[in-house]
């Protein structure tokens, strides 16, 4: 069995060497398909995590007039917590707000000087409300506007993440559709090239195949090397793709991270390295086997 497998590998390798340029073109085309394939997987995950992060950052801030006592604000908080649309409310006192503001603007001397000039805490106490669902924020705002404590508020502030979330969602969907179209096109091209590589291999080994048949080579012994050739093409394409991906992440990961902070591209790639390799190798080998099988059924009659 091992001897037969070795011989099959030898024949497959011979076939690839004889048509080296075609094999190279085939591996390159498969590599492109796999690059898009893996990019889509990674992008899909990143887009989802970005949307989730943005959704998590959404909240309503109620800023109270400076003369409203803390007990009143805490009472309003308890009232609001009874609303089933609200998940949680965080109270930020005037002091805490000032502390955060000072910490944030410690490298900005102008703001620090302005605070010194004012001499007292100009910031308002606030309640930060998180809804159970991102779609409920507008309804919560409406109920606050109609509430009895409405006149105690300076402003109701809804972070504008909703628009960003829907924009990211739309963009992600567009990119997914684009990637899918690219995958289909490149997979088809890979299939056509791989099919032709195997066809050429069948032609170049025509004499061997004829003699194999005459001396009693089994069906699988004759077909095996060509299927192996398809598998090897898929494998080489997958390995090349993962090397290119790793290089891109190593060289450009930090820059991409600077451009879109919190994206977690490098972290995601390295923590899912084997998963991505497994998926794209399976896809590559599947592509190789299908094209070889198709070519064998068309051009190799035993």
């Amino acid at each position, binding site marked *: 069995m091992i001897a037969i497998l070795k*011989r099959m590998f030898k024949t497959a390798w011979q076939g690839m060497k004889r048509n080296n340029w075609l094999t190279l073109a085939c591996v390159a085309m498969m590599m492109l398909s796999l690059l898009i394939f893996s990019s889509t997987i990674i992008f899909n995950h990143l887009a989802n995590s970005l949307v989730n992060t943005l959704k998590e950052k959404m909240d309503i801030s109620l800023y109270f007039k400076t003369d409203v006592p803390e007990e009143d604000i805490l009472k309003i908080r308890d009232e609001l917590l009874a609303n089933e649309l609200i998940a949680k409310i965080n109270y930020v006192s005037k002091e805490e707000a000032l502390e955060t503001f000072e910490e944030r603007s410690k490298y900005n001397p102008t703001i620090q000087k302005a605070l010194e000039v004012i001499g007292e805490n100009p910031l308002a106490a606030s309640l930060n409300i998180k809804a159970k669902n991102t779609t409920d924020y507008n309804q919560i705002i409406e109920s606050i506007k109609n509430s009895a404590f409405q006149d105690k508020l300076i402003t109701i502030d809804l972070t504008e993440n909703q628009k960003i979330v829907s924009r990211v969602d739309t963009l992600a969907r567009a990119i997914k559709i684009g990637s899918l179209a690219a995958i289909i096109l490149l997979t088809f091209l890979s299939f056509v090239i791989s099919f032709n590589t195997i066809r050429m291999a069948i032609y170049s080994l025509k004499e061997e195949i004829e*003699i194999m*048949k*005459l001396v*009693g*080579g*089994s*069906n699988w012994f004759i077909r095996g090397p060509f299927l192996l050739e398809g598998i090897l093409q898929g494998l080489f394409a997958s390995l090349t793709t993962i090397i290119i991906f790793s290089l891109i992440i190593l060289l450009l990961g930090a820059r991409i991270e600077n451009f879109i902070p919190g994206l977690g591209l490098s972290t995601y790639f390295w923590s899912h390295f084997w998963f991505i390799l497994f998926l794209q190798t399976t896809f590559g080998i599947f592509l190789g086997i299908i094209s070889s099988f198709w070519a064998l059924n068309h051009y190799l009659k*035993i």
Partner: protein
Amino acid sequence: MDSIRIVRINSHIYIDKIMSLVYFKNVSKSYNGSLILDNVTFTMETGEFVSLVGRSGVGKTTLLKMLIREELPTKGKIFFDDKEINKLKPNEIALLRRKIGVVFQDFKLLPDRTAFENVAFAMEVAGYPNEMIKKDVPEVLKLVNLQNKADNFPYQMSAGEKQRTVIARALIQRPELILADEPTGNLDPINSWDIIKLLVKINELGTAVMLATHDKEIVNTLGKRVISLENGKIIRDEQEGKYLI
């Protein structure tokens, strides 16, 4: 396939039931409506030497191709070792071809392999282990008197040597039958006789041989069974026959 042979000894007639190696039963073959073989029936026994004679295009090669299941009959049945060839599954076809060695006029040797490698190829394909290949190939090459040419490529060999390499390749799997399709067609008379002598020697060692030829001199000198084909039909089947077409 069982068949009956009538033997006369000292005025007594005996009916002898024997199992044939090859049995063609009412076999016809046509290509695009043109009839190549027409209702051919014959048997061939284990260890027998049969010459198949007839003009070019009479259907000799088609008949041989049907025996190794390269072609299927349009009508009729073909048996080898009691198994109907038409009904073989793909893996059984491979096994059939290992039992039948084939020798062609145009050699069909791999040009980029030496004589040793060409013979070894048949064993590799059948899945024999390397140790066995290393042991058996030199023995067969010796049998065909090519022990000194084992490392020669086909372009370094004469036509006769090439044909002997082909015979070695056909013999390497110890077949029950050797099919030789015009094996002397590309050879000079001396080399032709060498090949025929080799086939006779192989037959004497127990392997059946079916020789398709239109070389009258060879057939007449052999003095073995001759099946004559004309217009797709067997017109004569004689033990110790002659080429009479």
